[in-house]
C-alpha cells in the first residue's frame, strides 16, 4: 500500500513531505506543511475511513478500463484460448481477489469468458463437468451469491 497511499495522502493534503508509520499496535501519519514548515499528526482513523472509498473507486475504474480494452480488442475472436492470453485479461487476473466481485458483476450484466480469470484467482471450479458456457457462467454467479458477494447481484 505504501506508495499508493503516500501519493494519495500527499495529494489530499497538498504537502510534499510525509511520513506514514505502521506498526503492530500504532499507526500514525505526519505531514510537513509546505507553507509553515511545521509537523502535524493526522488522525489515522479519519484518514483510513476516507482511503478505502477512494481506493475502491480506483480499482473499479482500473477494472472497467481493462474490461473495455479486452472486449474491444478480442470480441471478434472465436477462440477462448486466444482471448484469455490478451494482456488486459492477464492484468485483471493480476488484480487478485479484489477483482472477484467485479468479475461476478460483469458476468451477470454482460456475460463473457470470465471463468478462466475467476478460476485463476480463486483456484476453484464450481462448474459441473461437461457444462456449457451458459451453465459455467451460472455456476459462478451462484458461487458468488453463496459467498455473499454483494456486487454479484
Amino acid at each position, binding site marked *: 500500500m505504501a506508495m499508493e497511499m503516500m501519493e494519495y495522502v500527499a495529494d489530499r493534503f497538498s504537502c510534499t513531505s510525509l511520513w506514514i508509520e505502521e506498526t503492530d499496535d500504532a499507526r500514525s501519519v505526519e505531514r510537513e506543511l509546505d507553507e509553515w514548515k511545521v509537523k502535524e499528526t493526522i488522525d489515522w482513523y479519519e484518514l483510513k475511513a476516507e482511503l478505502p472509498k477512494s481506493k475502491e473507486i480506483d480499482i473499479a475504474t482500473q477494472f472497467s478500463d481493462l474490461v473495455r480494452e479486452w*472486449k*474491444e480488442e478480442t*470480441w*471478434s*475472436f*472465436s*477462440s*477462448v*484460448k*486466444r*482471448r484469455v492470453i490478451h494482456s488486459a485479461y492477464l492484468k485483471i487476473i493480476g488484480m487478485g481477489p479484489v477483482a472477484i466481485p467485479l468479475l461476478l458483476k460483469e458476468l451477470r450484466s*454482460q*456475460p*463473457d*469468458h470470465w*471463468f*478462466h480469470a475467476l478460476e485463476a484467482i480463486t483456484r476453484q471450479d464450481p*462448474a459441473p463437468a461437461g*457444462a*456449457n*458456457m*451458459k*451453465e*459455467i*457462467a451460472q455456476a459462478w454467479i451462484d458461487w458468488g451469491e453463496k459467498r455473499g458477494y454483494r456486487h454479484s447481484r
Partner: protein
Amino acid sequence: VVIDIPDEWRQRIPKLFPQFVEGANFEFASPVDPNYNCLSWALSYNDKYLEDYKGAYWPWKGVPDDTVDGWATVCELHGFFVCDGEHFEPGFEKIAIFEDAEGVSHACRQDKNSLWKSKLGGWGPDIDHADLKILEDGYGTVGRILKRPRPDWNL
C-alpha cells in the same frame, strides 16, 4: 422478425468491420449467444462451442483447434472437401476459413441463396452477408474454401 442486438454490439462491430452497412451488405440473423462459435455455425451447429477448451467441444484428438488445417480437417470429417472458389454453386454448400497473422480466425458457410452465414466472436450475434470481402478488415484473408453436396436437411 426484429432481432434484439445489444447496443454494445451495434457499436463495436462497425469499428472492426468498417465495410459493414446493415441492410445493404449484411443483416443480423440471430441474437447474441455464447454457446457456439463461428466454426460451429459454419458446420450448422448452434449448441456446441467447437474448441479444445473448458465448456467447449472438441472430440477430434490430435486435430489442432487453432490452425486452418485443423479446422479444414474437421470440415472434411463432416463431408466437405477442398475446392477452388467462393462462387455460388447450386447443390453445394461451401465453407470459407479465414486466417490472420495469429492463425485461423474465422469460418462461415454459404446458404442456398448464396448468402454467407457468420457467427461473430464467441459471444456475438450471427449475421448474413453478401460476400467474404467485408470480413477481411477483421479476419484477414481466406485461407481455404471447402464444399460438400448440400444435405437435404440444410436446403
